[in-house]
């Protein structure tokens, strides 16, 4: 009975894994296909002739590494800054007392409900008036501003750390800045990893902001992959190269996830404890 139940459970889990992995699997298979095979009927589940050259073509069709560098710079700046600023804010909400703190925290969380799309044009206008269009300053400012979700994660994590730790540090002469840097931050590596991973992924995968704020020459890999694999003469998309470019584009984030996955899982699961 137990064996049957367990087998059933595994079958369901395998089916779910197949369901979620299949779009990525199809992308990988497409990346190895010849252009003419993509619309074949009956469907070619695997390429007749594997086109490994698609990957080298995808890398040289435009300045792939240049755009990857742009993405890396923006994603690194943003993820480092937003992790620090969110940790700082989360620490404040968790460990400091101030009048109206709950209200401010509520307002902060409520901003998560606001769709980003409605602030697009005002955002552009603000950055245009500040002379920051076609620069990476917007990502610095966004990074310094913190993110409500990450502030929430840090706040939850810091809130359940023992008060004795904080009191002992104060007795030893530490101020709150030092308590944050020397005691709380080093202990919060699971949330730090989670925050770094999430924020890096947000920027690495973001299409709208770079598309809105950066020129074609300065934009990110997400925009380049989506728009530049086109037939030069009539701008029609070249789907197999786009698939190969997309697979390569996903790899750094996958790598980052595998490196940080233990922290990521721990961070998400423990930040809800209090």
């Amino acid at each position, binding site marked *: 009975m137990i064996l049957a139940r367990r087998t059933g459970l595994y079958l369901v889990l395998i089916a779910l894994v197949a369901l979620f992995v299949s779009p990525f699997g199809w992308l990988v298979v497409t990346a190895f296909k010849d*252009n*003419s*095979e*993509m*619309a*074949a*009927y009956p469907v070619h589940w695997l390429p007749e002739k594997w086109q490994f050259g698609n990957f080298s073509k995808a890398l040289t069709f*435009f*300045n792939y590494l*240049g755009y990857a*560098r*742009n993405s890396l*710079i*923006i994603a690194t*700046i943003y993820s*480092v800054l937003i992790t*620090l600023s969110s940790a700082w804010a989360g620490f404040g909400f968790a*460990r*400091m*007392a*101030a009048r109206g703190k709950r209200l401010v925290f509520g307002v902060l969380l409520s901003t998560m409900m606001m769709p980003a799309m409605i602030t*697009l*044009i005002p955002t*552009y*206008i603000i950055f*245009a*008036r500040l002379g920051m269009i*076609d*620069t*990476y*300053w917007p990502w*610095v400012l966004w990074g*310094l501003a913190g993110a409500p979700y990450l502030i929430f994660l840090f706040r939850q994590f810091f809130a359940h750390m023992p*008060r004795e730790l*904080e009191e002992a540090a*104060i007795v030893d002469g530490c*101020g*709150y*800045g*030092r308590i944050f*840097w020397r005691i709380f931050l080093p202990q919060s590596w699971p949330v730090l990893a989670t925050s770094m991973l999430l924020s890096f992924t947000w920027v690495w995968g973001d299409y709208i902001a770079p598309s*809105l704020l*950066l*020129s*074609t*020459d*300065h*934009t990110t890999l997400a*925009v380049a992959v989506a*728009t*530049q694999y*086109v*037939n*030069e*003469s*009539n*701008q*029609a*998309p070249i*789907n197999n190269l786009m698939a190969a470019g997309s697979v390569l584009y996903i790899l750094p984030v996958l790598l980052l996830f595998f490196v940080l996955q233990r922290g990521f899982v721990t961070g998400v699961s423990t930040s809800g404890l209090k």
Partner: protein
Amino acid sequence: MRSTTGAPMSRRRFLTTSTGVAAAATAGGLLSGCAGSVSSGDSGGKTTLTIMSSGTELGTAAEIKQAEKTLGMTLKVVKYDLTRLTAMLTSGSAPDIVRAEGSDAPYLASHSVAQDLDDYFAKSTVLKAADLDPVNDIWRWDGKKQGSGPRYGMVKDYSQNYTLWYNTALFDAADEPYLSETEPLTYDKLLDVGKRLGASGKKSKAYGLSMGGTFETFMIMTTQAGGQLFNDDYSEVDFTGDAAKNALAWYIDLAKSRITPSLAYPDPNGWDWPTFQAGRMAITAQGYWFGGQIVTDEKIAATARFAPAPQLGSKRMSTCYTGTGLWMPKAGKNKDAAWQAMEYFLGGAPAKKRAETGAGLPALKSLRPLLPKTEGFQKEAYAVQSKELDYFSVLPFTPYIRMDAMNAVIYQLTPGAIKGSTSVTKLADQLNSGINKQLANGKKLIK
């Protein structure tokens, strides 16, 4: 602020820490856009033009560099995006040149967004009025109708939109005679041919005929049949006239037959080329422009043929509604320099190169001889296209809303009719109601 245990927070440490974070952020000079240039651009104090275009339609990165050298300017290319364009115009940082479809010319001109270019054309030695292909009339607006009055832009290249490409291999397999190179099919005959060519089975599945169901489709068909969709001042549409209802009924019949990709049953490949290339689409109404794609595949080039646009009524018309081109925002700050760039991209080396590829007909008559005639299919297509030009016309559109807004209503409502729950009469009423509401709202916004 005080701590939960009453100890004051160190202000000095707070400031030190915050400064450290800001300094770390700016370290390495990574923040200026130039640090991220993928082509090592340097403005060097020259005039900088911002051009909003799509993909590499004005040239690859290397070709844009060449254009900068030739023009002696720095060209900042930004991806065409309506949201960004709106934001740029609103923030007072309008781009200098923008791409758009000619169907939006009345909208841009009547909203006082686009610059009247007549003075520039009058002085130009590159883009001479006498050399302009008639398609450029799509960018004219006299305050009441499209086709006459000042020019607000110029076409980059174009097609007579519903000219047909077909795959002779599928015609041979179905024992179907090839299409005439000179005489257009009626829409009804075209539908019959498409139905005979559309095959579905375990080992084959081919679309017999691909034709879009957009506002432009219905407008072309209605106009050919002697009707009209717009009223005289373009403030209302009427789909309930006989010609318009016939056009709707024809399209619904086509879509229901499942021999075409449609809004209700789209082609998973996204657009016609992959399916046509795979030998799974017999006829596609893509226009001459599609030849630029066909030439990339020898196998399909060997079996591809070009044919005239189909007709609904007795009057032969082969229209263009897109006429994609460039316009200059009135709010642009470098208009003379922008015009020089327009001359270069629309009449200089890039325009010649585009003509030579055959990805569209050139917008200057003098460039027409450059159209490709190397491959067999290109020679045949050129011959058919040359005769087709005798029946050329442009379609007039409304100044009150953009074409996208009208098509959004069509995309929302036609799937119901294709799937059988809405009659053509009811669909026509619904389209009138949905589109006229938008037109009325749009009309209020014009001063």
